[in-house]
């Protein structure tokens, strides 16, 4: 179908438009190294041993106008952090824009939920080595298959845009070691992104996403279907040599009340079985009850970042905080301060050096190995050196 569209559109192009309408390819590349002074791995992949591969990724983008109103686009992404590092489709879509006020897109698309959601892999597009994981690891949704539209109104310097969308998605919860139960699918997803932009100087965003997530992952992990909602608000300002970026996000499990009640009922049933001497059944019921009692929603996070650009150098300082629900009685909150400096090798490439000081409460975002406990988690630093470019 795509080939047919390409063939039909090429016939309708005027000769003078050929260069402008040619197939255009671009790309981005990131590589770097990071390590921590913590004995407990941070955010799954950062350990005491400096690693390059998880920080390396390559993206290739192609776009082709099919007519004056229709564009075909796609992007391939290879990530070192993934188990197979293979080049995979990041997104691919067909966009129809009849005028400046409205456009429609169908296909695999980036979700306009987080401020950096649509270009989170493009290191050149933001000041840090990575977008703050306090916010960006709250809910790992990046793209969806479905339809979206954009309604845009321009008033002098002001642009107001609303982007509603709907579709389905599948999230790989363990990219570095996928298993048969690590893929989580969502249906009936819908959301919207509202953006008010004053030139490139001030941008306000509010976004939400809601979907029904199937958490029946395997015969032993059966958490039913949960409806989650994520909301995100952000503000970016650009004044002379200063940039200010802030973002707040919150997740809610809309079915939490139902599952908590169910969990309480199953706990009571398990207690009755135990009283009757049926130990095996009681253990199975108790496990189910414990799983049902896990809180997945209910996390809040924000960050504030100030960037100062001085010719080919940029310095930045950031504060981030995340509050996540307790997991089996263990808190998972953390605060962090980050300072870094970027050196522009060219307008299209940058080298960044960053130090992040993490103050966890309980686990924070640390991921202890099987021989470690929460007592091993301490205040720590994460050091990162990155190179990012676009081409």
């Amino acid at each position: 179908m795509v080939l047919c569209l390409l063939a039909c559109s090429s016939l309708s192009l005027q000769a003078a438009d050929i260069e402008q309408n040619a197939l255009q390819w671009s790309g981005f590349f990131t590589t770097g190294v990071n390590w921590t002074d913590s004995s407990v791995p941070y955010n799954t992949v950062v350990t005491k041993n400096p690693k390059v591969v998880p920080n390396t990724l390559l993206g290739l983008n192609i776009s082709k106008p099919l007519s004056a109103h229709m564009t075909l686009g796609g992007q391939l992404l290879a990530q070192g952090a993934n188990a197979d590092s293979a080049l995979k489709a990041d997104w691919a879509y067909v966009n129809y824009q009849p005028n400046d006020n409205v456009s429609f897109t169908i296909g695999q698309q980036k979700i306009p939920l987080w401020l950096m959601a649509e270009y989170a892999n493009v290191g050149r597009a933001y000041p840090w080595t990575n977008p703050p994981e306090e916010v960006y690891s709250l809910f790992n949704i990046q793209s969806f298959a479905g339809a979206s539209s954009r309604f845009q109104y321009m008033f002098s310097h002001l642009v107001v845009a609303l982007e509603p969308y709907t579709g389905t998605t599948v999230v790989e919860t363990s990219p570095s070691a996928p298993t048969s139960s690590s893929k989580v699918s969502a249906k009936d997803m819908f959301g919207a992104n509202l953006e008010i932009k004053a030139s490139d100087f001030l941008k306000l965003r509010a976004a939400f996403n809601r979907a029904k997530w199937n958490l029946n992952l395997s015969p032993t992990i059966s958490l039913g279907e949960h409806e989650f909602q994520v909301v995100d608000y952000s503000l970016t300002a650009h004044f002379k040599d200063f940039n200010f970026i802030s973002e707040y996000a919150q997740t809610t499990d809309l079915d939490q009340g139902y599952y908590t009640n169910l969990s309480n009922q199953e706990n009571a049933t398990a207690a009755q079985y135990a009283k009757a001497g049926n130990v095996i059944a009681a253990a199975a019921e108790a496990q189910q009850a414990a799983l049902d009692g896990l809180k997945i929603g209910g996390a809040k996070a924000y960050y504030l970042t100030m960037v100062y650009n001085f010719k080919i150098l940029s310095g930045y300082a950031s504060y981030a905080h995340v509050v996540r629900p307790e997991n089996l009685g263990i808190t998972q909150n953390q605060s962090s301060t980050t300072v870094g400096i970027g050196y522009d090798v060219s307008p299209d490439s940058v080298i960044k050096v960053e130090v992040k000081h993490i103050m966890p409460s309980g686990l924070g975002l640390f991921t202890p190995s099987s021989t470690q406990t929460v007592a091993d988690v301490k205040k720590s630093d994460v050091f990162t050196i990155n190179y990012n470019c676009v081409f």
Partner: protein
Amino acid sequence: MLSKKYIYILFFSLMCLGQNLKAESKLVIIVNHSNEIDKLSLEDAQMIFMGTKNFFKNGNRVSIVDQDKEGSVYSDFYKRLINLSPKEMSIYWAKLLFAGKGRPPFKVDNDKDVITWVENNVNGIGYITSDHLDQNVKQVLMLP
């Protein structure tokens, strides 16, 4: 002593000449002669060259031609148009391009190529230094 005096005179003369050249070097936005637009506001020019506004009032899609980003005309143009540096423009387009929300304009090397391109494209719009403006294209805005 005399030679030092001449050096000072030469130095200040060159400085004044430099100022005059800088003051006279204007940047203009041009369109094809058949385009019905005669004047473009600064706000519209900003939205067109930033990829926010993609259509002329007659409904035709805008075909932007940009200049080589390593050149001085490019950096001067975006500094005057919207006060962004080449680095900031690169970041701006990276955000749109890799999100699937836009495509950077087609690029050519110099003013002469911009004029040729706009001449041959009825919906073409580009920018050049006013020194190279000729009768084959129409000026719609001079940048302050």
